[in-house]
């Protein structure tokens, strides 16, 4: 499956799960801020991706489990270097370059873009293709 084919399937999945228009699901769109996904939608997205792509997604594999609640990883409202390192290790499909410039906990949700989901699927399918 090519990068574009994966993107199209992810796009269809997000349109279905979030009730948004196809045009809104751009690679850089943030799931929460731009597509108005709520926490429960993440459960739905994980399930639908499993159905569409036929693989199993473990808990915390696509979206992290409570890293932001760990006091070792969050201090003064910001994610610590250790926290960012932990997130990077858990979420190799996510691009942290923008987040690292201002690692406010309140901005953690912004790292989950459509592109991050596409990257995740590509990795799961064992592919390294790019558009």
């Amino acid at each position: 499956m090519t990068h574009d084919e994966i993107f199209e399937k992810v796009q269809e999945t997000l349109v279905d799960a979030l009730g948004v228009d196809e045009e809104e699901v751009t690679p850089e769109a943030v799931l929460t801020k731009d597509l108005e996904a709520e926490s429960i939608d993440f459960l739905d997205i994980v399930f639908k991706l499993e159905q569409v792509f036929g693989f199993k997604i473990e808990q915390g594999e696509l979206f992290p489990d409570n890293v932001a609640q760990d006091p070792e990883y969050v201090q003064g409202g910001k994610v610590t270097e250790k926290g960012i390192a932990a997130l990077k290790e858990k979420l190799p499909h996510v691009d942290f370059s923008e987040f690292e410039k201002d690692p406010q906990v309140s901005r953690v949700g912004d790292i989950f873009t459509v592109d991050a989901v596409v990257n995740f699927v590509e990795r799961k399918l064992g592919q390294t293709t790019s558009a």
Partner: protein
Amino acid sequence: MRWMWIDRILEHVPGERMVAVKGVSLSEEHLYDHFPAEGSREACPVMPATLILEGCAQTGGLLAGHAERFKQKVLLAKIARARLEREAAPGQILRYSATLVRLDDFGAHTIIDIDLFPEPGAPPVRIGDAEIVFSHADQNRSGLELPEENFVFGDTFTTLLNSSGIEIPE
């Protein structure tokens, strides 16, 4: 009125599947408002679709709750999809067949098929289905303070499980 929209559980495979039925009765108060006679139009008492969905949610929620030994507060979080093609009238029986398709710490995903037995002895007719997502409220509370006790699965659910012969896990 008790908020109970299934009458009996017919089948239960823990962690996998639950089948429940609901008999629609003309003694149910809401059927007189849904829909009353108006002008020359006769009354048309049918089970509201929203309550059919509640029956689906109760079946799926019990299946998900039982799978976690009723330790989680299983709340209906999202109706991801629902389809209903036909009404259910008094004297007819609805059957909800729920399958647990995903379960983790944060919640559960269920798919429920909806069948109707139009008259006694008649074979069931598939009239719809629904895909319902449940949240384990303590894991997704987003700052909400929730009571310690499991307020979701109260006495009415216990009665239903007992009368259906379903063992309640310790």
